Every structure is written in structure tokens, then in C-alpha cells.
């Protein structure tokens, strides 16, 4: 039961706070937000780009417009409402994943390779660029797959930090602050991805195994607490249960 997804999602859930407005993407980001809302953050509001506030999906949605997003939501506005609130600086935190992340916390979901003649043409930004540009702070979840971690992403879909380690001109909010994988917790306080914690039983070498650059360590690299019984019980309500077959 404590698979990679569970480790990532639970660790990410702990980075979310009660009472926050939380803009979430599909997949592990939704799972992380749901765990938080149903453990330590009952007053957190899940926001989807389709216009839903206070969503409480009974199964993990496959689309931001899925039935589980709509049914039981506290508010169904439209895209203009949620992105307007985002642009006005009123959404505290976003949770996103992507195909690639780099040492500055930039996310790529657009192309692998060259933009016009790509090796892999992917899905593009969706709301990712908008959320990363505007949200209060960004929590990133990524599977531990070395190909997904690069020193510089092929295409900056969603801006993190610039080459100087600071937020690019034109963005708002703190940008990426936490990156959770099944092996580790990284932060960006110093302006670049820094190992800050290890999942239970994981070593510092394994945490960055296969990464193409040397990831700095925080002064104190902590060991993350293992998932609690409550967290796992909550996780089981959604994990592996995507929308109906």
C-alpha cells in the first residue's frame, strides 16, 4: 500500500496548511490535496481550473472538469472566476506535476526536444503556466525518474526561478517552494533545488540517483516521518480509485 504515489502524495499533503485556498492539478496533486483536506487541513479549499471551489471528489478525477470535481463542490463558477482570483493573488498554494522539472523549479509539459520539431510533443501548459506564474507558492510532486530531472528543462512551460535563482520579472508569488518525490523532499530557498529531507529509510545518494547535476544539500537534511495510519487510511479512499470504469 505504501507505494511511490502514496509516499509522494502524503509528503506533499503535509506541505499544505489548513484554511488555504489550494489550486490543484489532476493526478497526484489532487491526491495530495485530498489527503491534506481530510487529515490536518479540513478548512482547505480545493480549487480546479474548471471553476470549482471547495471540490471534494469522491473518486480521483481524470479531468479538471470531471463529474467528481463537480459533484459536491461548494462553488461552481467558471474559468474566469478561478483564474481571476489566481491573478488577483488570492490563491495561497498550487500543487502541480509535470514531465520535467529543473534545478530552478521550472516545469515542462510542452515538448521534449526542439519546440517546432520535437522528439515528443506533449500536452502543453493548460493552467500550469498560469498557476506557476501567479500562485502564492508552488508545491511540486514528481515520480523519481531521472529523465524527468534536468539541469535545464527543454521548454519552460511553467516558470519557477530564473538562472539567478530569483523569480522572473512578470511573475508573482514565491514560485516553487517544495518538491516531493517518493525518495525525497527538496526546497528552493537558496534559489535552486536543494535536498531538504529524505523519505523514511532512504539515503541521500538514492534521493538524487541518476540526476545529471549535483544537487546541493541543506544544512540539516531531515528524515520525513513515515505515513501515519490516519494518512494511509485517508489515502486509501482515493488511491488507485480513479473515475469509474
Amino acid at each position: 500500500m505504501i507505494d511511490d504515489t502514496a509516499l509522494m502524495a502524503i509528503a506533499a499533503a503535509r506541505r499544505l496548511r489548513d484554511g488555504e485556498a489550494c489550486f490543484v492539478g489532476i493526478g497526484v496533486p489532487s491526491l495530495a490535496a485530498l489527503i491534506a483536506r481530510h487529515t490536518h487541513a479540513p478548512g482547505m479549499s480545493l480549487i480546479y481550473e474548471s471553476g470549482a471551489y471547495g471540490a471534494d471528489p469522491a473518486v480521483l478525477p481524470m479531468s479538471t472538469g470531471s463529474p467528481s470535481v463537480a459533484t459536491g463542490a461548494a462553488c461552481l463558477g467558471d474559468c474566469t472566476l478561478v483564474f481571476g482570483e489566481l491573478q488577483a493573488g488570492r490563491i495561497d498554494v498550487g500543487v502541480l506535476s509535470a514531465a520535467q522539472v529543473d534545478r530552478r523549479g521550472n516545469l515542462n509539459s510542452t515538448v521534449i526536444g526542439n519546440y517546432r520539431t520535437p522528439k515528443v510533443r506533449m500536452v502543453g501548459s493548460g493552467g500550469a503556466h498560469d498557476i506557476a506564474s501567479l500562485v502564492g507558492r508552488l508545491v511540486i510532486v514528481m515520480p523519481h525518474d531521472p529523465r524527468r530531472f534536468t539541469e535545464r528543462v527543454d521548454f519552460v512551460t511553467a516558470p519557477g526561478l530564473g538562472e539567478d535563482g530569483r523569480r522572473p520579472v512578470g511573475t508573482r508569488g514565491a514560485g516553487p517552494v517544495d518538491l516531493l518525490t517518493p525518495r525525497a523532499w527538496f526546497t528552493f530557498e537558496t534559489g535552486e533545488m536543494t535536498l531538504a529531507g529524505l523519505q523514511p529509510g532512504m539515503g541521500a545518494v538514492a534521493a538524487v540517483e541518476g540526476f545529471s547535476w549535483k544537487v546541493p544539500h541543506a544544512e540539516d537534511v531531515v528524515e520525513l516521518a513515515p505515513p501515519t495510519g490516519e494518512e494511509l487510511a485517508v489515502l486509501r479512499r482515493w488511491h488507485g480509485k480513479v473515475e469509474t470504469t
Partner: protein
Amino acid sequence: MRSIVASTKLKSLEHCAAEVADGDTVFVGGFGHAVPFALGHQLIRAGRRDLTICRSGADILADQLIAAGCVARVVFGWIGNPDIGLSHAFRRAVADESIDWEEWTNWSMVLRLQAAALGVPFLPGRVLLAGDTPVQLPDLKTVTCPYTGETLAAVPALQPDVAIVHAQRADEEGNVQMWGVVGDTAVGALAARRIVVSVEEIVDGEVIRASPNLTIIPAHRVAAVAVVPWGAHPSYVQGYYTRDDDHFRRYGDVSRTAEGTLAHLDRWVRGVDRERYLSMIDTGTLVDEATR
């Protein structure tokens, strides 16, 4: 007195699709919810060509329109098969350079449509100012706020020639009601010069007028309405039927090859009328799920 009906907007599915001409810029409604598959499939059957299709997040209906050769250009914020994978027909069309595209973000696409709905040539936005997305939009301009001196993106209006929209219900006059996820459907429709709509059912004007806050498009903006039950399948319609997730998954598999995609279109679209289509889906299960 309240039931005066001037003239009916009620037309066939074929008539509605015929409102879309070759070369048109078409807004495709449906944000995960109420995607106008039946209208889109009719465009494929009618052999429509050289369309520019636009919306924020484009799902497998866009992929099918591309695979069928209807599309010259896509203007989008996202294109794929939600939670499943890529838009393979788009991917192939990019690879063989048979399609043009313009790539924005979901919010900037909504702003483009909102600008057109508001009748202004641009709206200022706080996105498209960093990262590589604006780099790929060489014609994008900025605007300086005359009060604060801030630089904002000048997000240009996008006025579709026609919007195709599916919704829960309408009256004969053409007042269209939708609830559940609205996404960018209302703003995209209102941005367009013409709007054609399919609905699950036509109801009396009295029903519409009993809950006017649910009307997302007023009648005078609507060119034609077709009654097409299950017209959003395999997406869903809140209160009518749920999402056929398996259908999206199967399409994710078969669309990996051009042959698989065309075989899917042969099976589900070309030469298939609505009766045949409905006989191929397990409507009972999908309706039951919706009532959970």
C-alpha cells in the same frame, strides 16, 4: 402571455453542423463536461475542411477532428487525453508538418475569448511574461498601465466565427441552460459570431424562466439548436449521464497509431447515425453512475 414563442430555433443535428463552414474558426465548447462530441462528429461526417479549432483545454474530440482531416490550425492552451496521455493525432500532425498551431495557456485562452465577448481588442493579463510560452508567440505584445506604469501582457481578442456547444437543455427560442462545470463554455460561446447548440432535451419556456440563473446563452445569440440525447458522450452531462472514462482510455490506446485512429472514426463516426451510436454504448451503466 409568458409563453409567446416568436420562432423556433429547433433544427436537425445536420443543420446545426452546417452552420460551420469550411475555413471557419470554431470554438469547441465543453470543459471536460458537456463536450459537443455529436456536433463535432457531424463536422467529420460532413467532411468539413480547413477549420481553425480553438479552446483552452482540448480533449479527444479535437484529436478526432485533426485525425479526420478537418483541421488546418489549432489554437489551444492544452491538448491531450486527460489523465491518460497525449493527443496522438496532433502529435503526428506536428511531426509531419500537416498542421499549424498556436499555443497559449488556459488562462490566456480564456482572456482571449473574454476580450471578444466584451468587444475589446485585448485584455491586460499577468501571464505570458516569463518562461518559454511567450517566446513561441512572436506576435504577442505587452501594454503599459497608464496609471501604475506596470507592464502587462496584452492578450489579444479571439473571435471565433462559430461556437459549437452542448448543454443540458434549451427552449425552442434558444435560451440555453447549463449547470455543473461551465469552464470556458459560456465565454467561448459569447465570444463567437454565431452559436450552434445541441442539448439533451428541449423544455418549455416556462421551465427555463423558472430558473433563469442557469441560462448561459440568451436566445437572441443562438443560431440553431438540435436535440441530441447523449450528444456529449463519451464526456458527460451533469444530471443526465456520467463520463465514459473507459472510452477515453480505449481511445488513448487505439489513437497511438494513425490506423487505429481511423478505424475508431470508421467505427464510431463515419457512416454511423445516432441510433447506431447509441446502440454501441452502455447507456444503462452510465446513467446509473450519474445518480450515485
